[in-house]
Every structure is written in structure tokens, then in C-alpha cells.
């Protein structure tokens, strides 16, 4: 096994045993899955760069040196070929795309292996292990031993050459092996995942290599927030060409996010029909049937025969998104019925449409919520759902792919809310479980130290009011309870639109807090009196308990707003952190109030 970081700087020795320089780079042939090393680059005296053929001149290589098979005078130097890639210059420390893991990563080292006197590249090391080795091999060994102690392996994270795409070097003119997967050969959805990890300029470079249909697919698959940026960065002509190729509903989403001037410019560059379709869609609100529908619908009239419908489909409707249902309209474009592709296929060619049409059509209005649309489609097992206005004029259809997307969005929201995390935990061994938990133990420990700190600030109060300490665990427990209750309520209420406003929640929770505070204050007072505390101490502590409970309840109303993402898709940080935060708030208020009241009340 050889690692590039270890090989760089190794002496190059000729057949006579003379050191003639040190390794500066290694070139590989790009056509294979595990590419052969083809050339050796080294720095001679005075840092003069040389290059020679590995196959012709390298006798053997070990950890300490590279030995050549001829004396220095007999070497014939060569030049870098266009299809060669230099491991140090083009790969080491560079960002590459891992086209198998769909990730953008940085190369920390390159692993090579020797077999039958042939050195081959095994892959690029992109994990922590490569970083450690690059810093110092001793460090790598030490950490590897440490992780073995806790029963884990410091794994190598290798990416094979055929799953690499280089970002800085253009490989489009290089002959690659058939199995070599480049970024633009990925499925558009996978390519979009990678594109989102790139910087704007890198993204622009990838788009330069894509043809318009591929670019349209990739843009459509990007997350909303990237789509407008990407289109904005492309030249206007290219951007409008790409938008034209996209489904009008997707194009409208993007254009709606662009600045007005740019949007107008692109619409004017687009074809008349495409632009009109997009403009019509721009009028509808997001997350409604109108917002997700496509106006490209295959329509026929009742007078046509089955034969005519099939011909119509072939001629005009071929490029429409969905042709599984054919919608029947009257002369005013009002929806009167639907026929399925199945009906068409099994009917005689001369049958009039009126004979096979089904008049019982499920429809939605453009203002209906997208979740309702998706539920309707799932309930009736529809592949497309027509959207009509109040006069039953057919405006467009929502296709099943858009409905699936809606369902995914909504269920991700619900799942994230219910489980308190974006990912389901995978099965894990005890060590990583302990690691996770000890992380939290540390947080609690820090909070504990913080609490002691808080306490020390109120030292004087506590000497006189020892009883106040009894109620600290109560406040902490209550804060946790309030935090989880507050989140549970939030999940119950379902979609974002249904949630009450912050103001309303504050009012409700304040009222609840007053009730809770009064009750817990009274209980505290009763207990303290029973324990024989002086009246003044009992009043002070009871008031402080009541006040702290009230404030904690009010703060609890804020937790979901702080903890959950705006789009409701999950948590911003581990949920325990928020209940811990609430506990700190509660404690601080409790201690502060005790001290204040102790100072304010007459002795």
C-alpha cells in the first residue's frame, strides 16, 4: 500500500545508486477503473522539474525511494499527455464530486497499491483518517489505536476513480472507462443533490457542460431556494431556453422567485405559448391547487370518435405531462367528463366519445390547499386531478408526481415534529450510543455548573432562605414538562396554516401560566407553613414559585417558534437543548424573584 502524501518528497535513485531528485507528482492513465501509474514527475537539482515514463524506467519502489533501471544519463524524459491526470496537481487537496455517495468532498490523500510491478490508484481518501495521516502518520496511528480501544475502527473513506468527477479540471476531452460516472451522467435528482453543495461559480461551470434538456431536468430537481439563483446566474437566452423546456408549473415556481425585471425579461424571451402558460400560473398562490397544477392538458370534445382522439393525442398532446386521462370539454372549455387511456384502447375506433365518457369527475378549485389535493388524489387513486374554476372551466391538472411531492413535504413535516429529529436513528452500537448520551451529560453538567454560578450570585439570599432550595427541582421538572407539552400541542395542530399566531398562543399560555402559578404558589405556601417556616419566608418563596411558573409557561409558548424551522420541516437543534434552556430561564427567574422579594418585603 502506498499513500501519495508519504510518497511525495521520496528520493529518486538511478541505477548507479545516485540520487537525482525527489518525487513531486505522479500521473495516471484515465481510461481504467483502477488507473495505472504512467509517469513519474520529480524535482531535480535546483527544483528543476522532470518527467519520465513509469513503465520504461522505474525498476522498483519502496517506502524510502524509487529506483530507476538505467543510469541518469540514459533517461529519456517525457511530457504530460492530455489524457493523463496528475495526482498531486489535480486531485490532492482538491474538491471532487463523489458520484456514488452524491457528495462534494475534499481529497485528503490518495491510496495506491502495487501488483506485478504495476502501481495502480485504488482511490481517494476523503475521511478523517486521511487528514490525520496528512498532519502526521504518528497522529493517525495514535487516533486509530484510541478508537480501537473503544471498540471502533478508524475507517478509511475511499472513493474509487470511476466514481470521481473533478471540479477544477475539465475531463470532458478525456476518454474515461465505461463505468466511470461523471456528475452530468447522474439521475437529475441525484445531480441536483450534488449541485446544491457546490459554490455558485462551481455550479455555473457544471451547467456549462450540460445541454439544455439535461439542464432543465436538473434545475427542476433542485430545491426551491437554489432554482432562482441558478437561473439568475445563467445568461438570459440560455435561461429562457431552459425554462421553456420545463413543465410550466415548475417554470412558474422559479420565475415567481426572480426579481421582477429579470422575470419579465425571461418571459419575453420565451416562446409565446410557454410564456402565456407561465403567466397564467403566476397568478395563483403557492401551496394551492393552482400553484402546483400544470396548464398542459389533453382535451377533446364529445363529438370526436375514439380514432380521432388517438390521432389527436399523437399529434398535439405528445409533449404533455400526463395523458393517462383525457378530459372532455364543451365549446366553452367547460369540463364535462373524462375518459381514460384504458377506455380508449379497448374501444372500437369508431365509437363516439360521448358513449365512453364518464361524467362523474372529481375536481378541485385553484384555491384548494395542496394537502387537500394530494389527499383527494390518494383517496380516489387518481393519476391526475383536474382543476376547475367556479364556472367549471378547465384550468389545468395536478399530476401524480406533484401530489407525491406534496405528500412527502407534509409527511416530513409531521414526522419531524413527532420524533423531534429529521432522521430516524439507525441501529447503533453501545459506544456510539454512549458517545451521544455523554454529549448530553456534558451539556447538563455545564448547565449544572451554571446553576451553581447563578446560586452563588444569590448567596446572601440563600443563607436566610434555605427553604428556597427545596423548590429548585420542581421548577426544573416543570420547565421540562412545559416544553414537551408545548411541542405536543404544536404537532397536534398539524399544518403550519392551522397553527395559532404567536400572540394568541402567548395569551392562552399566559392564562394557563397564571392558573398553574397560582396553584403551585399556594401548594408551596401550604407546604412551607406545614414545615413551620416563618410567614415571611413562606410568602417570599410561594410568590417566587408562582412567578417563576408563570414566566416559564409564557416562555414555553415560544419554544416551538424558536425550536422548529420556519417551514416546519424539523428541529433547529437537539430538542433537549430547548427544555434545558427553559429550565435555566425558570431557575433564573425563580432565584431572581426570591432575591428581589427578600429585599423588597418588610422584615
Amino acid at each position, binding site marked *: 500500500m502506498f499513500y501519495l*502524501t508519504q510518497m511525495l518528497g521520496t528520493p529518486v535513485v538511478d541505477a548507479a545508486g545516485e540520487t537525482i531528485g525527489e518525487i513531486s507528482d505522479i500521473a495516471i492513465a484515465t481510461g481504467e477503473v483502477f488507473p495505472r501509474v504512467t509517469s513519474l514527475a520529480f524535482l531535480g537539482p535546483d527544483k528543476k522539474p522532470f518527467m519520465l515514463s513509469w513503465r520504461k524506467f522505474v525498476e522498483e519502489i519502496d517506502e524510502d525511494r524509487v529506483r530507476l533501471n538505467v543510469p541518469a544519463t540514459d533517461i529519456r524524459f517525457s511530457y504530460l499527455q492530455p489524457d493523463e491526470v496528475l495526482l498531486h496537481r489535480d486531485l*490532492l*487537496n*482538491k*474538491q471532487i464530486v463523489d458520484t456514488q455517495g452524491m457528495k*462534494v*468532498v*475534499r*481529497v*485528503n490523500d490518495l491510496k495506491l497499491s502495487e501488483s506485478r510491478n504495476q502501481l495502480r490508484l485504488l482511490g481517494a481518501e*476523503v475521511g478523517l483518517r486521511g*487528514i490525520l495521516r*496528512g*498532519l502526521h502518520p504518528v497522529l493517525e496511528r495514535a487516533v486509530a489505536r484510541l478508537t480501537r480501544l473503544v471498540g471502533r475502527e478508524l475507517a478509511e473513506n475511499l472513493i474509487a476513480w470511476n466514481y470521481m468527477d473533478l471540479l477544477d479540471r475539465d475531463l470532458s476531452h478525456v476518454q474515461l472507462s465505461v463505468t466511470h460516472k461523471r456528475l452530468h451522467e447522474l439521475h437529475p435528482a441525484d445531480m441536483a443533490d450534488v449541485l446544491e*453543495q457546490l*459554490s*455558485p*461559480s*462551481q455550479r*455555473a461551470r457544471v451547467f456549462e457542460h450540460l445541454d439544455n434538456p439535461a439542464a432543465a431536468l436538473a434545475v427542476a430537481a433542485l430545491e426551491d431556494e437554489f432554482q432562482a*439563483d441558478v437561473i439568475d*446566474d445563467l445568461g438570459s437566452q440560455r435561461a429562457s431556453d431552459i425554462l421553456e423546456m420545463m413543465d410550466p408549473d415548475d417554470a412558474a415556481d422559479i420565475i415567481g422567485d426572480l426579481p421582477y425585471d429579470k422575470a419579465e425579461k425571461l418571459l419575453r424571451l420565451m416562446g409565446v405559448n410557454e410564456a402565456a402558460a407561465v403567466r397564467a400560473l403566476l397568478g395563483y398562490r403557492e401551496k394551492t391547487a393552482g400553484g402546483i397544477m400544470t396548464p398542459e392538458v389533453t382535451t377533446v370534445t364529445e363529438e370526436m370518435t375514439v380514432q380521432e382522439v388517438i390521432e389527436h393525442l399523437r399529434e398535439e398532446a405528445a409533449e404533455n405531462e400526463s395523458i393517462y386521462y383525457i378530459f372532455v370539454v364543451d365549446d366553452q372549455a367547460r369540463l364535462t367528463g373524462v375518459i381514460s387511456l384504458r377506455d380508449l384502447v379497448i374501444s372500437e375506433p369508431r365509437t363516439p366519445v360521448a358513449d365512453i365518457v364518464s361524467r362523474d369527475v372529481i375536481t378541485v378549485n385553484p384555491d384548494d390547499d395542496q394537502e387537500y389535493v394530494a389527499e383527494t388524489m390518494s383517496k380516489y387513486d387518481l393519476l391526475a386531478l383536474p382543476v376547475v374554476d367556479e364556472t367549471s372551466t378547465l384550468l389545468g391538472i395536478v399530476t401524480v408526481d406533484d401530489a407525491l411531492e406534496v405528500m412527502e413535504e407534509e409527511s416530513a413535516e409531521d414526522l419531524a415534529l413527532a420524533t423531534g*429529529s*429529521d*432522521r430516524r436513528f439507525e441501529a447503533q452500537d453501545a459506544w456510539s450510543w454512549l458517545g451521544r448520551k455523554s454529549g448530553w451529560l456534558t451539556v447538563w453538567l*455545564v448547565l449544572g455548573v*451554571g446553576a451553581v*454560578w*447563578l446560586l452563588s*450570585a444569590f448567596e446572601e439570599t440563600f443563607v436566610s432562605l434555605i427553604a428556597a432550595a427545596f423548590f429548585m427541582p420542581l421548577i426544573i421538572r416543570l420547565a421540562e414538562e412545559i416544553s414537551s407539552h408545548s411541542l405536543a400541542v404544536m404537532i397536534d395542530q398539524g399544518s403550519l396554516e392551522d397553527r395559532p399566531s404567536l400572540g394568541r398562543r402567548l395569551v392562552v399560555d399566559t392564562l394557563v401560566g397564571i392558573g398553574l402559578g397560582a396553584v403551585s404558589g399556594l401548594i408551596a405556601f401550604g407546604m412551607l407553613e406545614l414545615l413551620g417556616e416563618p410567614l415571611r419566608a413562606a410568602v417570599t418563596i410561594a410568590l417566587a414559585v408562582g412567578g417563576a411558573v408563570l414566566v416559564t409557561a409564557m416562555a414555553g409558548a415560544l419554544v416551538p417558534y*424558536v425550536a422548529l*424551522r*420556519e417551514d416546519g420541516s*424539523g*428541529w*433547529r*437543534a*437537539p430538542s433537549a437543548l430547548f427544555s434545558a*434552556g427553559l429550565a*435555566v430561564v425558570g431557575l*433564573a427567574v425563580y432565584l431572581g424573584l426570591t432575591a428581589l422579594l427578600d429585599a423588597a418585603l418588610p422584615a
Partner: protein
Amino acid sequence: MTTKRTRRIGLFAVLSVVGPGVIAASAGNDSGGISTYSVAGARYGYQMLWMMLVMTPAFVIIQEMAGRMGAVTGKGFSALIRERFGLRPTFVAMLLLLASAAATTVAEFAGVAAAMEMFGVSRYLSVPIAAAVVWLLVVRGSYRNVEKVLLALSSVFVAYIVSAFLAKPDWLEVGRALVVPSITPTAGFVALAIGLTGTTIAPWMQFLVQSNIVDKGTSASEWKLARWDVIAGALAANLVAMFIIITTATVLHPAGVQITDAAQAASALAPLAGEYATVLFAIGLLAASVLSAAVLPLTSAYATCEAFGWEAGIDRDWSEAPVFNGLYTAVIVLAAAVIMLPGLDLIAIMLLSQVVNGMMLPFLLIFMMRIINDRRIMGSHVNGALHNIFAWGTIVVAIALTTVLMGMTALGLA
């Protein structure tokens, strides 16, 4: 005809790219900056003004270089360091950056503590709350909205310009001090000079301005216009800085005020705001501190992750980007924890952090000089002679100052 069209497009384009540079430079006039400038004026009068005049072109040029690297390569500073120098130097550079950012974040929380103590709020209350607020601002993603409010609030320091005129300094004296170099050969003076360099040309600011340019997708051809934003921001920041020195030198120096707490620094605004000087100063200090306390941990976490290829971004959660989230959380928590140490001298902490910045600066600048003069990376956009002279001059002076300070300390002259 053609010239007219270019001008029109030009103006529009300038307006559309305004932002990153101004924000980066304003974040530079943070609590550390304000305290350092105030102390410089109060202790040494106008004596240090000439340094500001020398440092202004250096600052402008260095900020311009950082922005240019971003526009030409489309990559952040730390990514360039990694690709040009490899793993080990990158590790050192990231340690320097993290040290500089952490020290400055400590100063920001010192600023919060000092500002709130002027309102009578204990630092044991204000600092944890500020830390929580800053952390939430970032994870909640509402930071971009709040940024503008904080920027507006921290611009109250423009009040120093008015205050300087109202204080009626001897302008002839000011002018003379501005152009005639003068030094006091004491360790305190040298340390403050390093701090002045460190706060004016803070190392993390180059990372910030470059990553802002990269995120905006500014290309090399757009850079001709975009750089004016960076240059204007740098000039404005240094103008305010100079007026802080002039004001404190006029108001506090003759009275022999040494500035040991924030209230004394605030009193320099008295000619303008009278009894409200404290309030004005406290609000500005608080806003500037919170703004920078959010920006700094973010900048350093971004840069570090970029260098080592870890996932980063405020829209990524803990499971997606553990190192990124861990780093900025750690910087915020540690910095706030330092301020919680009992009996800390806040002004001294703010000054010290800037001295740390000043000591780190030359080493990061050396990386920058090697990259920006590398034709394989920058193509035709490598530095001109003027850029090289000022930048190398800054490096040499900064290293010399640190060496002198260390020598003086070793010889017991401190």
C-alpha cells in the same frame, strides 16, 4: 453612445453589489475596535493618528485583495490555502484563524457585558442571554433580517465624527499628528500599536469579505464594480476609527482619563450627547458586539469546514454538519464562559484580543500574498507593485512590532 450605456449599466451594477464589503468592514468596528481606538486616544492623545493614516491604504488594499481572490477563483480563502499549500500549513492557518476569531468573540461578549453594566445589568445575566440570543439568531436563520437592524444601531458610532467637531480640537495639531510619525518607546505603546493594527486589519475580516463575494457569485468581470463596495466600506470604517481617536484624544486625554471601564470611554461622547452619552455609547457597543459575535463564529466555522471538506451551512442541522455546528457553538459558549470568570477587567480583555489579532495577522497575510501572486491561481489578476509594497510592508511592520514587544518584555522593559 456606448459610453453612456456603460455608465448606466455601471451605476445599476454598483448598487446591486453593494453590501458584503460594507458589512464586513462595519463588523470590524466592533467592541474590540472601539475600545482600542478609545484607549489609543485617551492614553497617547493624537500621537497614534499617523498610524491610522498609514494603515488605511494597507487595509483597503488587503480587503481588496481578499475580495479579488474570491471573485477570480470562486473559492474561499481557506479553500485556496488548502489547495495551494496542503494539509499541514492549512491546519496552522485554521488554528490562527480560530484563535483570532475566538479571542475577538471573547471581546464581543466583553462588549455586551460592558454595555449592559452601564444599564446596571450584571454580566452574569447579560452574557448568557446574549450568547443564547446570538446562537439562536444563527440557527434560527433570522440572522439576515436582524443584521440590518444591528448594522443601523452600530452606526451610532458615526456620532464620534460630530462629537469630534463639537469638542473643538486644535485642528492644526491634529493635522500635524496625522502626518508626522511619532512613537513612545514603551512596551505599552508597542502593544497598543499591535492592537491597533490587529483591530484595523483583523485577520478574520479577509475570510469574511472573501466568502461573502464567493457566496454572491461575483465573477472576475463583475469585480471591477464590486470592489468599490469593499473599498468604500474599508474607508468608511477607518474614517470613523480616526474620529474616535480624535474625540477621545480631545476630551479624555487632557483630563488624564486612562479608560479603565466603558463609562469612561463613553464620556468622550459628552460634547454631543451630554448626559445621554452613556446611553448612546452603550446602545452602539451592544449592537456592534452582538453583530460581530454572530458573524465571527460563523466565519471561522465556515472557513474551517471549507478547508477540510466538511459540510457547512446554517441550513444544515447537527446530523448533516456536525463539525460546523459544533465549531460555532463551541466558539460562542467558550467565549461567553471566559467573560463569566469572576473579576475580569473587560477593557483589558478587549484590548488583549486585538493584540492577539495583530500578532496573527502577518502570518495569514503571508499565505494571502503567496496565493494572490500565483499566476496559476489568479491568472492576469495577480497583484500590482503597489499592492505588493503595501501588503509586504504591513507584514514586515506587524512582525517587527511583535518582535519588539517580545524583546521588550524579555528584557524587562515592560
